């Protein structure tokens, strides 16, 4: 790579928004507090001044209404970016996303395109308790007609938005709330588009495959580092796209390492980890030397007290323990 510069995940999103608004007149941003305030996570700071009120639209607290309006605007020819403050509040617009955005192309016999991008923060870790700590990525990844992305790195946060806007179908982008302050290097010069069809191998190893996405990537890499100190080398796969899943890359790694551990902040029952596990057993069953392990969130609403919250979530220690279990050491 030539020149690089260091920015935060938040900056990466802001740059990507600004670039998209500049490149395509049909793009506009809409959501609660996105304009005057610059976004609950400060991802749109300064955009109102740069692009004006028509294109940076503060909405009332009406998730179902403005998400539906975004879908309608996409139908009619715009390229809206909807910011739903967090996945928790997206439950109020789940109906619009699942019953309208996801189905319209198919139901209309291909008459409609819904090129909307819906961004939302996700995840736990800040003592916000049950209603503000959900990881419901898999609810969306369950639905045919949607594309679901989870940028885990600064580079992906910078690149995925434009790639999503170029996609003619509705794309949901999950930004884990604990990632906004993470820093990373990106190329000084564009283009910054990202591959949104494939998983990425974030670390190479032979003894086990660790599969994860989004906010769990840093924990998983930390676990892989500490295992490496004990001579255990892991492949770390960052799924990046949660729907569709990159089955080929997952399977190729498991065929190499013979062991798989999936790290997913969703609850274990009905989780994305469950789907990945099923794909591994469907496609690589005879290559496995141990049962697939899943490190997920405890099956309870996320509690308020800090030690309980930590106990509920995947952690470096839990990942290390799962790998050791898979290796029977």
């Amino acid at each position, binding site marked *: 790579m030539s020149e690089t510069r260091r920015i935060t995940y938040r900056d990466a999103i802001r740059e990507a928004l600004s670039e998209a608004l500049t490149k395509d007149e049909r793009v506009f941003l809409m959501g*609660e*507090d996105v*304009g*005057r*305030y610059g976004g*609950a996570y400060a991802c749109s700071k300064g955009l*109102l*001044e740069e*692009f*004006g*009120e028509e294109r940076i639209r*503060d*909405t*009332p*607290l*009406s*998730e*179902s*209404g403005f998400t539906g309006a975004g879908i309608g605007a996409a139908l009619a020819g715009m390229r809206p970016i909807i910011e739903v403050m967090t996945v*928790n*509040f997206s*439950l*109020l617009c789940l109906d619009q996303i699942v019953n309208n955005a996801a189905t319209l192309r198919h139901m209309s016999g291909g008459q409609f395109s819904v090129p909307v991008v819906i961004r939302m923060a996700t995840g736990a870790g*800040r*003592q*916000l*308790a*049950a*209603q*503000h700590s959900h990881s419901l990525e898999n609810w969306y990844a369950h639905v045919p007609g949607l594309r679901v992305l989870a940028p885990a790195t600064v580079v992906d946060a910078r690149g995925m938005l434009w790639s999503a806007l170029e996609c003619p179908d509705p794309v949901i982008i999950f930004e884990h709330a604990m990632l906004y302050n993470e820093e990373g290097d990106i190329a000084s010069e564009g283009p910054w588009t990202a591959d949104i069809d494939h998983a990425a191998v974030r670390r190479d190893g032979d003894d086990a495959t660790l599969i994860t996405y989004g906010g769990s990537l840093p924990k998983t890499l930390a676990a892989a580092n500490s295992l490496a100190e004990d001579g255990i080398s892991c492949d770390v796969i960052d799924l990046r796209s949660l729907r569709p899943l990159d089955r080929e890359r997952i399977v190729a790694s498991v065929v190499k390492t013979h062991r798989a551990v999936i790290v997913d902040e969703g609850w274990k029952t009905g989780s994305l980890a469950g789907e990945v596990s099923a794909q591994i057993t469907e496609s690589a069953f005879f290559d496995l030397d141990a049962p697939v392990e899943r490190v997920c969130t*405890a*099956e*309870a*609403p996320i*509690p*308020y*007290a*800090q*030690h*309980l919250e930590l*106990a*509920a979530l995947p952690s470096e220690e839990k990942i290390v323990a799962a790998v050791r279990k898979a290796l029977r050491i």
Partner: protein
Amino acid sequence: MGCVKRLRTAPFVGWALFSAAGSVNNPGMKLTKEQLLVNYRKMRMIRSFEEKLNELVNSGRLGGFLHLSIGQEAVAAGVCAHLSERDYVSTTHRGHGHCIAKGVRVKGMMAELFGRSTGLCKGKGGSMHIADMDQGMLGANGIVGAGIPLATGAALTCKLKKTGGVAVAFFGDGASNQGQFHEALNMASNWKLPALYVVENNGWGEFTPTEFVVPVRDIAVRADSYAMRSAIADGNDFFDVYEKAGEAIAAARAGEGPTLLECKTYRYMGHYVGDPLAYRPPGEVDRWKNEHDALTGFESRVKADGVIEDMELRRIDEEVVEELSAAVADAENDPVPAVEALYEDVYAKE
């Protein structure tokens, strides 16, 4: 494009709606001295409780995400003065005041905020989910608007069981833009439920001024669409809230159906503790504090009426401070929940 309106051009002065002589028909005299003292204590407790929380978070002794209602105390006290244990209340992320006004004990609240097993929710709910079934407190709620249908269902229960009880939903102006608000009001009016919907219009929804996202000045007019009674109260005037809530609750108990009561008020603090508050027009908060503070206003009224002496109020102030210090000390020493508590109360026990 260059001149985007970032801030409101004039400060939000919700009380300007009420002429100086307007709202107060000397209703203070309908309250006994005891009642006045009880309500002063509640308002003082709400303010001191939250000032304490602010201090605890800023000094790093308390975590979580707290929303303070300092400035809005008269709404909670004025409405809840008409309620008893058979009545229900639902509230929001900004709900400490409603809890205290409804009779929830600060000791259990403080322990909850410290995440202790002695907390009202055993340390699992925290500020945004504080609840106390014994007091008919159906809970704070982290989802804006979500408490409104809950109170509606509680009101339906009061009606079906003929308990004579009422249910009150407290929520912000922002919540009145949610579908849930409109759906609930429609049902409540259609079913003539014993409910009161109290919208605390504090001029802000998080960091965005209300008038930037709502085309009507008064949220109260939204009741018209549902053929529901409405009223507007000066939310920083305890007596005005007390009177208008009293009429609405009496009507609800008499089977005349629900009311939407809009209280014009203001939050002194940020949206959450730690909010740097860069978005507020200069002078706005000071005008409220200096010219229209709920506690100062209450105090000068009762003193002017000659019912209560300064000493009596100051004694309450001291008692409140003592009670809070004890609550903090207890909470800090109380045990934290065992890790197994994580899996308890997910379902009812067999």
